[in-house]
């Protein structure tokens, strides 16, 4: 009941006491819709859940048994705030696959990379500071940042990722305005939600611009090892070890249930980050760190990863094929070379958020684009995930979505918001970015 929603907050006896950073966290219409989207009847192209069912459970079970048998008491004990040193060494080997030469001594293990986002925001940001981020940007990062009352300033993306010219212009403008930019937050590989990858030729430039403006770079790279068409270019951290904080995660290359991520930081930041981490939760789980250490040191995890990549590649193909087959003209989308997401853009007059109720009634869900901006942009865009539903469900979901878009276009035309349908319109629309900002 809507009035109940209203009451839950209006009648909240604690409402005068909340910290400024959490006051905007309220129930919303969209949250109510997502409560339905989790029902199995609905094809959810919304969530970014890794397909954990593809993991070899017997092998995972063996590793769990080994941990308990070999190091049970320690694995169930508190541990150091920086993280299990054995795991940190293994993580440096993972990073080496992306060209990074780092020391386990500069790694801080976190509860998923989401915690690293929180800890680094806490460490760097005062209310009113600015964080520069791609537009669109990962919604979880925006949530983490918003708690610290920062202003997120978006820089547009195109098919080659973050646009360096816009970045330079944005940083110059902020500098002129006397604003303090604390860092540039970027997901260079298989971007969430945009699906694009920062081109090799742009990487040095982005780093050079950040250095010139004395802005730290936060490189969030959970999908880097999930490329379908060869490896992505070297990580930003590989190119500039002194001015990049690299965030990694085992959530996509193994599983999110262990809650293991990490930050590889320039040595100057290490001690402070460890203190912030210890203040937050003392330490990450000793048990899951021991499991992850064994998985990546003794199990043939590369085979598993190869299998996961194959699963996601097939699903990506099905989604792109289905979009090309079913979705009406005027809709454009990106073509990810890895990761989990396609970013689709509707004709300008359609509002993806307003359309969501109709989509859920048609038994398909997506995330409206506005969620990925801190400033109200993105209303005609949406994120479509292909990571979790099996291929036939993706096909069905896109078919349902296409029907909803068709209806919505017809309605918009009837209301005078769109030109009448042109039967000769170009059906061979570009599977590209389409100038999305």
């Amino acid at each position: 009941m809507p009035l109940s929603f209203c009451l839950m907050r209006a009648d909240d006896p604690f409402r005068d006491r909340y910290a400024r950073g959490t006051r905007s966290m309220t129930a919303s219409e969209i949250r109510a819709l997502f409560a339905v989207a989790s029902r199995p009847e609905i094809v959810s192209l919304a969530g970014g859940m890794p397909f954990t069912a593809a993991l070899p459970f017997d092998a995972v079970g063996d590793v769990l048994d080994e941990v308990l048998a070999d190091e049970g008491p320690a694995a169930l004990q508190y541990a150091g705030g920086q993280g299990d040193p054995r795991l940190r060494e293994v993580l440096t080997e993972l990073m080496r696959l992306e060209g990074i030469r780092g020391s386990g001594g500069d790694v801080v293990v976190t509860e998923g990379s989401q915690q690293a986002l929180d800890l680094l925001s806490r460490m760097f940001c005062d209310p009113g500071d600015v964080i520069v981020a791609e537009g669109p940007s990962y919604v979880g990062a925006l949530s983490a940042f918003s708690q610290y009352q920062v202003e997120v300033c978006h820089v547009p993306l195109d098919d080659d990722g973050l646009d360096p010219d816009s970045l330079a212009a944005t940083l110059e403008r902020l500098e002129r305005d006397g604003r303090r930019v604390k860092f540039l937050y970027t997901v260079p590989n298989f971007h969430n939600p945009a699906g694009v990858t920062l081109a090799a030729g742009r990487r040095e430039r982005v780093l050079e611009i950040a250095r010139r403006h004395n802005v730290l770079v936060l490189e969030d790279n959970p999908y880097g090892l999930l490329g379908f068409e060869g490896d992505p270019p070297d990580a930003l951290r590989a190119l500039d070890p002194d001015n990049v904080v690299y965030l990694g995660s085992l959530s996509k290359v193994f599983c999110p249930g262990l809650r293991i991520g990490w930050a590889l930081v320039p040595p100057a930041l290490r001690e402070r980050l460890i203190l912030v981490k210890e203040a937050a939760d003392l330490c990450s789980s000793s048990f899951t760190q021991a499991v992850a250490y064994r998985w990546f040191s003794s199990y043939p995890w590369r085979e598993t990863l190869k299998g996961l990549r194959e699963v996601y590649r097939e699903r990506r193909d099905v989604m792109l094929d289905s979009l090309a087959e079913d979705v009406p003209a005027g809709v454009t989308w990106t073509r990810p070379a890895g990761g989990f997401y396609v970013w689709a853009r509707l004709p300008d007059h359609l509002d993806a958020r307003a359309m969501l109720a109709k989509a859920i009634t048609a038994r398909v869900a997506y995330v409206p684009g506005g969620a990925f901006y801190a400033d109200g942009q993105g209303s005609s865009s949406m994120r479509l995930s292909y990571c979790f539903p099996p291929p036939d469900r993706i096909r069905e979901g896109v078919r349902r979505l296409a029907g909803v878009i068709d209806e919505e276009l017809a309605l918009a035309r009837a209301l005078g918001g769109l030109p009448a349908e042109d039967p000769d319109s170009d059906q061979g629309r570009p599977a590209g970015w389409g100038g999305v900002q």
Partner: protein
Amino acid sequence: MSFDCSVAVIAGGLSFEREVSLRSGQRVADALRERGYRVGGLDADHQLVETLASGEFDVAFLALHGRFGEDGTVASILELLGFPYTGSSFDASRLAFDKLAAKSALRRAGLSVPSAIPLTEGALRELGVGALLDRAMEELGLPLVVKPNRGGSALGIRLIERPDQLPAALMAAFGYDDTVLLEQRVVGTELALSVVDGLATLPAVEIRPKEGWYDFSARYTHGAAEFRVPANLDPATATRCLESAHAAHLALGCRDISRVDAILTPEGTCQILEVNTGPGLTSTSLVPMAADAAGLTFSDLTTHLTDRAIARRPR
């Protein structure tokens, strides 16, 4: 009281109000357990019929809100199964859920309702009704309210102050139903009037906007409104409003419980906006708030409703 009874609290389902329904259901289940009933929580999903037919439960408590629940869908299943349940029958639920049909029934019963013009998505798309929107706005005057015809909720509801806001508001409302109402905006004191059969009349709850008028989108904004129980009305007016609510409850054939949302105009007319047959039953919802003001605990209220349903059990 029938302590030996096993109660199925049905909540959730595929409604857009699933989340609130689950909260209502949890709260109801806790309250009934506290009074010694055996309680099981059931989601309104594919397994519902099978579970109810298994004989595990004696009576159903409906804590459903919105479509596939409050619209009578689940009541129809329960009637087919011959299973006693709380609240209104299929017919009454369906009538109350259809705002346009309910308006007609309420008007026939001599009650005041805001004027409304229905628009169907098909008429807009296929018959060029869009050209008549200006006339509709002229007839109702601005501001006006755009709302889905079915959907017991403020979801998809927008207030229109300028003609250029109408297309986007219609697009949003059609997301929830293929029929949308353009409704005359009534200004006055917003009231939630609880009707619970078999209990003394519960006091009116007044919804007071903190500033200006009660913007529908502001229902989703923190602290946008305050509530006053009993409403700040003179006793005669309060009685008149509550009588109107009771008349509305009867006119639609409602049973056990309903919440009548109304606006008392400065001229003293009680304009009925809608009758909810599945009102919110969370700890802070309006009907429990009214009951509380009348000295009834939430357990008293849920027990009362359950016992009424048990009394309807075929013998």
